[in-house]
């Protein structure tokens, strides 16, 4: 096949291997003439135009609006591939050592009652960085992981969640006393995590990459100023 620049010269000789067959030469010449009519120099402009039109069709170059984070009700179940959980209520204490959380100077203990079920196939720990400890954050202190997780029924601290068994746990934070002073409710953020299976130098499956999935606002009672004794979540020992 001849080089493209050959045909631009009027006196360009026919390619040597094409010479014996006149019909083949004629066919290639016609093809080249059709090809010459294609405005290749406009391809970039046309492509850019199509790209811009498509972009405009999808809303232009402005930031796409993120999906709104759904707000769930107290006791409403939120399910992801790891956990099914619902947040019941919150209570704030001066001291609540049963959860394994100690309030420092100027701090109080915020305890959130959560029902959680492990919907995965293996036992999940609740220690910091795992399952429920990664799934819930306070909206007011979004970077603080829970300081303690304990079972509501027998007070086991950092309980392990067996597959398919719903458990009521108390998730607790030591918070600055002024953060929830006089507050009647607590907003919480609920996160979904993705399972990662280790390969080559790592092994086993771990959960990570937490993404905000829902928010929930639950009523908050102050156990130490409220005379109503029903507010005590009462972790039995």
């Amino acid at each position: 096949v001849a080089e493209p620049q050959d045909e631009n010269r009027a006196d360009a000789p026919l390619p040597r291997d094409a010479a014996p067959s006149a019909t083949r030469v004629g066919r290639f010449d016609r093809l080249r003439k059709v090809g010459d009519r294609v405005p290749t120099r406009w391809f970039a402009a046309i492509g850019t135009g199509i790209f811009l039109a498509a972009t405009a069709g999808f809303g232009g170059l402005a930031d796409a609006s993120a999906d709104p984070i759904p707000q769930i009700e107290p006791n409403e179940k939120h399910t992801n591939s790891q956990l099914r959980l619902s947040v019941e209520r919150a209570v704030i204490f001066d001291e609540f050592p049963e959860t394994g959380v100690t309030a420092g100077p100027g701090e109080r203990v915020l305890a959130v009652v959560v029902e959680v079920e492990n919907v995965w196939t293996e036992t999940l720990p609740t220690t910091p960085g795992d399952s429920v400890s990664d799934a819930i954050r306070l909206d007011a202190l979004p970077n603080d992981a829970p300081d303690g997780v304990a079972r509501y029924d027998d007070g086991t601290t950092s309980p392990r969640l067996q597959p398919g068994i719903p458990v009521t746990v108390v998730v607790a934070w030591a918070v600055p006393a002024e953060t929830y002073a006089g507050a009647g409710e607590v907003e919480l953020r609920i996160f979904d995590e993705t399972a990662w299976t280790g390969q080559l130098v790592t092994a086993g499956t771990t959960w990570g990459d937490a993404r905000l999935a829902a928010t929930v606002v639950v009523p908050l009672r102050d156990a130490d100023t409220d005379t109503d004794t029903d507010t005590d979540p009462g972790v039995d020992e």
Partner: protein
Amino acid sequence: VTPDAPPTPTVARRPVLTIAVASALVVVAWLVAFVTPTELDRSAPFVTTMSIGEPATGRNISATIDSVRLARAVHTDRWSADADTLWVVVDLAAEAVRDDVQAVFGGTTLRIGDRTYEASERPASLARGGLSAGIPANGVLAFEIPASAADAGIAQLDLSIEEDVRLDSVLRLDIDLTALDVEDDVELAPTEWGR
């Protein structure tokens, strides 16, 4: 190569031979790929099958299962659970074999279908406790499972020193849960040493 040489009969038969050899190589390659151990196989544990009442020994663990029971509720002298779950209670004696410096009973799992349950940390039990070389610890392992899980039938009990069982010994017992009577309330025996 001499282009003038007349074609020989071997040349005429070559395509058939080529196809045959190529097909054979493809089949052999498939067989090799089929029997090559995967990464999981390369780190698979060494399994010793247990039976009730018979001592079984692995690298650094030896255990004798005395009995397996199924209960709706379990209790110790200071703890009880009677939620809507089932408990698989395993009475056993376990000891380390080679050394007990880091012999923590870390691998105690019960596999039912595609779910794996760990021995519950709620009651006092042998789970995650230290084992001694030559001094058997008699006690229990209690597994909390959903009430519907026992219908699946076969459960696989795996015992090991480390939670990570890659290239280590696993003592395995197959349990037919449907063959067990469900007891109402089982008292979990406290751990005794050197009995």
